């Protein structure tokens, strides 16, 4: 599936050198926006907008649950500073056109990536589920439940995970974890989404530098 890219600055999903950037056509019916402001264009099959922690509605506007067009949000999942994973989360609004979703799926699957579709909520699927878990692990660590390496080993040996929650959150960057958790917390008000103390410390230290 042919796609064109409009790009400004570095993309978290497709950093410089990523083969997805070189696979783009000069122009195509489906356009991928990497850091470029969105302009509606109904003549396109799909306009794919790279998202950070924000909702797609920030770019397109909303109309009380009736919004939707050929604009599809997306982000390739990335644990902070870790390299991007193979997962692309597509973001749809209630009335997003099915043909735009299909085009987005074809573009990313054509690049060898795994595609899922999420509603337009902060955290989408993965961060919505993992950030409260990392917060819980960091709080349990503060409470003295177990040592960090034992918590991580328990998850690796007991659940077969490739890594544990503490090592993963630390590797991705606790300041980044703070950013995502804060965005989730503003939306949900759930205590589990509030950044854990260690993330607050990392955030404050990063601001001092």
């Amino acid at each position, binding site marked *: 599936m042919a796609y064109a890219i409009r790009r400004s600055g570095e993309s978290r999903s497709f950093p410089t050198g990523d083969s997805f950037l070189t696979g783009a056509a000069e122009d195509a019916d489906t356009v991928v926006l990497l850091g470029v402001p969105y302009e509606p264009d109904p003549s396109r099959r799909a306009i794919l907008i790279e998202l950070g922690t924000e909702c797609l509605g920030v770019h397109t506007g909303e109309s009380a649950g009736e919004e939707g067009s050929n604009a599809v949000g997306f982000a390739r999942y990335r644990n902070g500073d870790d390299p991007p994973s193979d997962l692309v989360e597509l973001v749809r609004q209630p009335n997003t056109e099915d043909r735009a979703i299909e085009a987005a799926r074809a573009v990313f699957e054509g690049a060898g990536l795994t595609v899922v579709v999420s509603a337009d909520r902060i955290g989408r699927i993965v961060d919505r589920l993992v950030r409260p878990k990392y917060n819980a692990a960091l709080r349990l660590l503060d409470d003295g439940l177990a040592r960090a390496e034992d918590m991580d080993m328990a*998850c690796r040996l007991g659940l077969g995970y490739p890594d544990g929650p503490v090592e993963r959150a630390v590797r991705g960057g606790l300041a980044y974890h703070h950013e995502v958790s804060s965005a989730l917390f503003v939306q949900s008000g759930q205590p589990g989404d509030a950044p854990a103390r260690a993330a607050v410390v990392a955030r404050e230290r990063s601001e001092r530098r």
Partner: protein
Amino acid sequence: MTGIRKVGVCGAAGTMGSGIAIVSARAGFETVCHDVDGEGLERASSQTASFFARSVERGRMIEEDRDAALRRLSPTAELDALADCDLVIEAVFEDLSTKQALFRALNPICKDEAIFASNTSTLSITQIASGCGREDRVVGMHFCLPAQLMKLIEMSPGINTSDEAFEAAWAWTEAAGQNPVRTQDRPGFILNALLVPFNNDAIRAVEAGIASPADIDTAIKAALGYRMGPLELIDLIGLDTQILLSEAFYPITLDPRAAAPALLRRMVAAGRLGRKSGRGFHDYEGSAMYGA
């Protein structure tokens, strides 16, 4: 080095108890397999024999070792048969009064120095030990399912557990070829404390229409490298069991993430218990998926 020679397993006809007995006998310990269910013990004995036979077939064990391990296992429905055990591990039903009654009954039967261990997933070790008469020699020893394959053991002392008893039990887990990690006497120890709320969050994501169960599972596997998505795992654990786990944690932790989601209760009421009923978040008879 462990001073423990002979091990008793209570609830040895059950899922966990039969696996724990295999771990013990395989590592060279005389193992008394106790259960109130005599028929269940017979069933467990033949399953154990098949497990060891497969281990030999797959080259993980030689025949002599298999025969020796099988000889070390002695099934019994009599509690008195545990009298000369150095360590008794209970894996009976997850019910505080059942576990307390068992340890109280065992106390006058077992040697004074014997250590009692509990495989509880959600109950307090201190509460299980309470009133048993040897509160200083009761430890938490939480194996993972399937116990005969998983190496991790979460070890937790109760408030009254002596360092000596804890260290002796720890040394036994290492001698049995397991990987112990130290945790505290808190609901769910490490694994379930993280897993039960995480799984409930996945159910709430389905309920909120964030994504289909299939996409939630795919996303978690692709992003994190997990072998199973949370909803596949809940289907395996059983949706009814997920409610029981939530009900064991929430009243103690008051963590809203641990509370059983409304959708989970509705699905159990609708008979969708997961794999065991053929349908949960995924359909195991057809290919349809439940939810958004």
